[in-house]
């Protein structure tokens, strides 16, 4: 059974059809990439899946759960975490604090227990920190643990945001342009992180990305969309050679 099943979803902003009948299935353990020109609706698709936008029609099922019946804050608890294109970290907090907030979906204590800081709260805090430290180790962030986000290079922030999503121990990770704004070297590192997450953590990854080098390096399957409609689906090589895709990108030329 597919882990994520997106079935002919549509989304309109007023008169503009941002997404028009897009369907795809993501199998457990694969890296599935969505590509498309600017304004194709890639990020909107992510915002549909993480429930920030309500779709006009269609269905989204994650691991047997109807996502459309969930509130946005309930999505991560099901095992579906995400990052943002523009990095939505808490700037005035340390890396460690940001990751601890990432554990929120796993919290076991109630507010009045927190208020009294019962022994249970301390036990839970230790467990949260152990999980956070494992992810810090995994993504090699130990050097930045106590640094404020504001003072960190852009490339490190990208990794911190992935770490923040990982501490919730998701099964599926939505990465919105993980390589945007990264240098060549940082993009190579990002490819390694993605492969590590897929192989070592057994994560399924759905990614939006423009960097075709990264896409063909890490993706198992690619979906190309343009103007809200699906164009083609296949392996990275198939997509790069697909005439429809080339036309959508380059406007009618036969060769890239």
């Amino acid at each position: 059974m597919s882990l994520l099943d997106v079935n002919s979803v549509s989304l309109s902003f007023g008169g503009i059809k941002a997404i028009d009948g897009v369907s795809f299935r993501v199998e457990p353990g694969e890296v599935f990439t969505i590509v498309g020109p600017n304004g194709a609706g890639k990020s909107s698709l992510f915002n549909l899946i993480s429930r920030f936008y309500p779709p006009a029609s269609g269905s989204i099922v994650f691991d047997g759960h109807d996502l459309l019946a969930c509130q946005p804050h309930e999505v991560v608890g099901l095992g579906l975490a995400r990052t943002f294109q523009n990095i939505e970290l808490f700037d005035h907090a340390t890396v460690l604090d940001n990751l601890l907030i990432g554990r929120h979906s796993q919290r076991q204590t109630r507010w009045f227990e927190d208020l009294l800081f019962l022994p249970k709260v301390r036990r839970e805090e230790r467990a949260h920190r152990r999980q956070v430290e494992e992810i810090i180790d995994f993504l090699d962030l130990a050097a930045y643990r106590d640094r404020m986000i504001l003072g960190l290079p852009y490339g490190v922030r990208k990794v911190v945001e992935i770490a923040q999503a990982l501490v919730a121990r998701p099964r599926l990770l939505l990465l919105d342009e993980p390589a945007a704004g990264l240098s060549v070297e940082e993009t190579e590192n990002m490819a390694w992180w993605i492969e590590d997450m897929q192989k070592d953590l057994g994560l399924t990854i759905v990614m939006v990305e423009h960097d075709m080098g990264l896409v063909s390096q890490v993706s198992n399957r690619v979906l190309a969309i343009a103007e809200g409609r699906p164009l083609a689906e296949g392996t990275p090589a198939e997509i790069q050679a697909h005439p429809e895709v080339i036309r959508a990108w380059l406007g009618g030329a036969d060769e890239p």
Partner: protein
Amino acid sequence: MSKPRFKTRYDDDINRFESGGHRLQYLLLLGLALAAPWLLGSYYTGELSSVLVWSMAGMGVMLLVGHTGQVSLGHAAFMAIGAFTHLALMLRGWHFVPALMTATLVSGISGALLARPILRLSGIYLAIATLALGILVEDLAIVAEPVTGGVRGLIAPPIELFGLTIDRHGTPIAFYYLCLSLVVLVTLAYSNLLRSPTGRSFLAVRDSEISARALGVNVTRTKTLAFALSCAITGLAGALYGHLVQAVNFESFLVIISIALLLQVIVGGLGSIHGAFFGAVVIVVLPQGIAIARDLLSDVGIRVAAFPGLDMAVFALIIIVLMVLEPRGLYGVWLRVRTWFELFPLYRKGLFRRARSYLKTERLK
């Protein structure tokens, strides 16, 4: 100069105090607070009680404004709810402790009920709605005469506790200890909150609602909880305030008090418990200082008393200057002074310059 410390256990970060030395500092402060009546005499002990009551109210506002990022221009309303509930119950023969607890609870619950509609708004609209709430409660205090005593208001009865009769004027030192113990309790609970998931969810909502939601924080519920806790603390402060000023009526909780509370936490430094205390010192001490300065000036022949409202203007001016020089308030000043001592002689001038943040575009809200 502080030595570098290595954290070897998770508890090093979980504990309230970073180190033994850190704990010692706060124990010394507590010792000083306990010894204050002997050091200051009864008049200044009374003033210190006033600082404590305003610190408590400030903590209520700080929780909402400084830690959850929701503005309120109507928190005097919750002081009023706390004060009137508490005094009305005591005047009907309730004992001090259950009356105080009920007043706290009533303030908290009314906060939670009001939060639902009000917190759908944000920013300036939220400020206007809470301002309206503040004005509404001024009128309600007159209309609800059976509870509030109407225009006359209520007189605070003396407190019977542990066989003692505590009265702000009769036994100012006992009243001071009562305020101190309640403030210490609330401060401990507040700092517990900040080192636990609930406090982190407040900060998350303050800094980015979108991100908070993506990380599993129920934003509506978190805001409601923050509003309720904030109102409960402010209501508790209101009840103590009733005993502090001995008589409350509709004029005790005017909108100007709400604005002063907001100023208090901003001047003290948003986003820190310390800020509520620093701000309270300013709110209580500054007007007194201005009054003393005015008396001194008139002694040497400069008649400033002829200008009514000058006190307020000087007060405002000092606050504006402070904000321009240190936007993080007195807590920011305190941080810089402390760092200067810790790093001496290596302190650099630009150390606390605020870094420019990346522009966040394409926010969903």
